[in-house]
């Protein structure tokens, strides 16, 4: 779990910094670090949590790669079962053709994405893949992108076998529609590097050629030559390195919107034109060194911002949620085909839990579709045979047969994804604060330029133009452009170190401005992971337990998963007539046993409740009914997360709400933890939560919703900031703006106050930049802005702003213990 930190920030050495909650040390799996309960395997003096982990350990050890375990503690990923046929479609030649990036004879190169890469051991192991199987020639890992570049000999190993090998050692490669379609998309954007290279080259050389000017040496012969050389050197900056600023300013202006690139472009062009004039007319050396420096520093700022964004890539393209292969039925025979081969008229078998890839007509089976990816509502939509099913939903109960009527259409899917529910207000890349200030900045600067130029016009017309341009040159918005990315980028890194992962820097601003906090209960305030499970009632037979396990496996509800993990592994049976009733229970038949599992009401056990209505005991009850007999129930205690009271204490002064889908059972307990007067609403459906948040926002409040993402994706998206608590990375939801690791929940108050600190640092750096501008303007307005002064002032302001923001933020974080 601590590895989630490395997952997203890409810094393995910091993995162990997320301090685990202090518990009496239960045995921990040597391979993956998970709790060894309930199935404690002890082999060769080491602890393992399951057969899967032990198997992977064995494979790794046999290949002589024990170094994997020496580099990091518990580097493995908690075993994910792989279905046997998962990579079967890779046998298809056309699929292989599309996936390969290069082929020469038998030499093949391919890129796989393996999200389980999270630490240096992973890199170490995966780059020694050739030791596992002959046929794999070379493998290289790109940690930031979680990709593996493989070179293999197709005669000795097939693409399918490569994928299965990766899965066998715990790094299941993820293959998605996006990858299958465009290998071109993996070409990284290198233009920023080129631009920085050119800008740096020009900056350094122009400065060198400007040295005589700095020392006040006059030699007409060389002044002319150097001047022209400078012009030549500055052309690539104007026309290439700085071109994005012009484009963006133009784009903004054409929409009658002044963004921060407007004053920047203005500054660059005035610098260039005035310098050009001075050099040609031989009235001065020009300011080309300042111009080059300006562009260079701005590009550095952009690069830093990009680096921060790259690490935060957990907003996956919608395409990666779509299946890559589907089961087509041809005359009752099932065959796996890649998605791209799907045509209207094809008949598909869509099993429980699988996604519907394209619009289709429901032919057979009961449709029970979860459209939460598409609409945010996780209530199941019932569909009868004959009805049209839209792409993007997930079938939940049992298998259905669908006839495809429309091509897999990217445009439709894109439109769905861009649905209002999923789009938040467009944010200026540099944040709201910068946007506000830059608007006024330009206007004020132009005003000052005009006024001072005008005043000089009266006294000395020659100076007027000089002063006018000088003001435009020296009024540097670079501090504005640099302060925000550097400060927020540092804040994000600080947060990541502490288990709080934000999607983008603008989330920091959103959190700082929050004044309403809404909490989900189950899975958020409670920790379904390590709850105690006890059974009361008629003991179940072995075959009944097997049937129960098989049934539980079909459901993704946290209680089902918890029970499934708790019960002893005992083989799987085929489940028929599976149905899940959201929030109430599941039923089905397995191994000849008809089972109903769920709440007391669901199973019909209300009359059996001993003290119905009186003392509320903590925990959820999962009742089991086999056939006609009610057997008993499991009691799953919900321990509240450690540190909840600490978290609440940290949020003092904020308005808090609790919305829970559960009943009022735990209201009394919650009241002791949360401040008096905290409104608590129970039995909330996902729509209720969504509506509640919407209403709060309509009142003008800035809402932060903290949930676990399972059935609050709609609400998370509605709020200004949606935070999902992650115990298990695979349960991640696309609707959240931030992920909070379970252990970091207690520090939520600290994160809030540090976000505010970050905003204050930005404001302070704005103040600093205004100071510089004032000094610079005083030179400019009095006509004293020599190139030397400009050359000193402008880089100085940029560098000090960068240093100031970064160092101050780090220092304040350190003081806060972050």
């Amino acid at each position, binding site marked *: 779990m601590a590895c989630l930190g490395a997952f997203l920030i890409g810094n393995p050495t910091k993995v162990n910094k997320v301090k685990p909650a202090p518990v009496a040390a239960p045995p921990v799996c040597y391979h993956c670090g998970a709790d060894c309960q309930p199935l404690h395997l002890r082999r060769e003096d080491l602890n393992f949590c399951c057969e899967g982990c032990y198997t992977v350990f064995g494979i790794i050890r046999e290949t002589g790669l024990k170094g994997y375990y020496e580099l990091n503690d518990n580097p493995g990923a908690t075993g994910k079962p792989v279905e046997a046929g998962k990579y079967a479609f890779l046998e298809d030649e056309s699929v292989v053709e599309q996936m390969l990036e290069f082929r020469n004879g038998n*030499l093949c190169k391919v890129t796989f994405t393996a999200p389980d890469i999270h630490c240096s051991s992973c890199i170490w192991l995966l780059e020694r893949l050739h030791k596992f199987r002959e046929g794999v020639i070379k493998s290289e890992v790109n940690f930031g992108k979680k990709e593996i570049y493989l070179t293999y000999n197709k005669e000795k190993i097939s693409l399918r076998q490569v994928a299965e090998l990766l899965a066998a050692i715990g790094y299941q490669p993820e293959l998605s529609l996006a990858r299958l379609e465009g290998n071109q998309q993996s070409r990284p954007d*290198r233009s920023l590097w080129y631009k920085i290279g050119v800008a740096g080259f020009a900056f350094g*050389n122009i400065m060198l050629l400007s040295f005589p000017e700095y020392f006040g040496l006059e030699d007409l012969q060389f002044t002319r030559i150097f001047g022209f050389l400078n012009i030549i050197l500055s052309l690539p900056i104007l026309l290439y390195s700085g071109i994005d600023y012009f484009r963006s300013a133009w784009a903004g202006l054409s929409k009658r919107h002044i963004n921060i690139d407007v004053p920047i472009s203005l500054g660059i062009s005035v610098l260039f034109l005035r310098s050009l004039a001075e050099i040609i007319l031989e009235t001065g050396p020009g300011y080309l060194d300042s111009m080059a420096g300006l562009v260079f520093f701005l590009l550095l700022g952009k690069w830093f911002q990009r680096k921060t964004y790259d690490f935060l890539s957990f907003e996956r393209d919608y395409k990666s949620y779509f299946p890559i292969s589907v089961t087509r039925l041809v005359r009752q025979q099932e065959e796996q085909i890649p998605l791209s081969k799907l045509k209207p008229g094809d008949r598909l078998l869509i099993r429980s839990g699988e996604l519907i890839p394209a619009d289709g007509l429901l032919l057979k089976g009961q449709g029970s579709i979860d459209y939460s990816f598409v609409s945010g509502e996780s209530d199941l939509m019932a569909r009868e045979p004959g009805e049209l099913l839209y792409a993007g939903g997930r079938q939940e109960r049992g298998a259905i047969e669908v006839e495809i009527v429309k091509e897999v259409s990217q445009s439709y899917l894109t439109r769905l994804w861009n649905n209002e529910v999923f789009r938040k207000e467009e944010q200026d890349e540099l944040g709201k604060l910068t946007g506000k200030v830059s608007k006024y900045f330009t206007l004020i600067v132009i005003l000052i330029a005009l006024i001072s130029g005008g005043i000089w016009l009266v006294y000395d017309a020659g100076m007027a133009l000089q002063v006018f341009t000088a003001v435009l040159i020296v009024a540097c918005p670079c501090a504005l452009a640099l302060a925000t990315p550097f400060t927020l980028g540092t804040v994000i890194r600080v947060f990541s170190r502490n288990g709080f992962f934000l999607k983008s820097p603008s989330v920091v601003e959103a959190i700082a401005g929050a004044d309403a906090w809404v909490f989900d209960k189950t899975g958020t305030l409670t920790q379904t992971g390590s709850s105690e499970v006890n059974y009361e009632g008629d003991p179940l037979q072995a075959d009944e337990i097997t049937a129960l396990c098989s049934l539980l496996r079909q459901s993704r509800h946290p209680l089902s998963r918890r029970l499934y993990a708790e019960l002893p592994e005992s083989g799987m049976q085929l489940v028929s007539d599976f149905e899940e009733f959201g929030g109430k229970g599941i039923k089905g038949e397995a191994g000849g046993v008809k089972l109903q599992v769920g709440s007391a009401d669901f199973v019909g056990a209300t009359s059996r409740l001993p003290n119905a209505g009186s003392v509320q005991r903590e925990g959820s009850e999962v009742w089991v009914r086999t056939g006609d007999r009610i057997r008993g129930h499991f009691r799953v205690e919900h321990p509240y997360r450690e540190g909840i009271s600490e978290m609440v204490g940290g949020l003092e002064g904020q308005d808090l709400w609790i919305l829970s889908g559960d009943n009022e059972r735990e209201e009394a307990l919650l009241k002791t933890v949360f401040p008096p007067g905290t409104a608590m609403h129970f039995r909330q459906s996902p729509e209720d939560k969504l509506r509640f948040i919407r209403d709060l926002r309509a009142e003008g409040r800035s809402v932060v919703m903290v949930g676990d993402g399972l059935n609050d994706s709609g609400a998370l998206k509605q709020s200004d900031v949606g935070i999902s608590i992650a115990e298990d990375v695979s349960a991640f939801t696309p609707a959240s703006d931030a992920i909070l690791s379970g252990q970091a929940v207690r520090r939520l108050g600290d994160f809030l106050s540090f976000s505010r600190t970050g905003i204050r640092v930005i404001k302070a750096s704005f103040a600093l930049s205004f100071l510089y501008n004032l000094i610079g303007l005083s030179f400019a307005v009095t006509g004293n802005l020599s190139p030397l002064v400009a050359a000193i002032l402008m880089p100085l302001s940029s560098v000090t702003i960068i240093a100031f923001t970064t160092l101050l933020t780090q220092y304040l974080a350190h003081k806060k213990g972050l």
Partner: protein
Amino acid sequence: MSVMYILIGCSVVIALGFLGAFLWSVKNGQMDDTYTPSVRMLFDDALPEARPEKEVAEAEES
């Protein structure tokens, strides 16, 4: 002082050479992943990695 012309000329050429080298390294993909190499170089490698070139040649021939 006319040697300055030669000096300036030479230094510009050399500087352009360095710029060219940088641009080539970017094009070659050396700047795509600046993080993993920093981790990779700290690994201890017990065995020499002589196989890859041989295997590549072998694979390409067939």
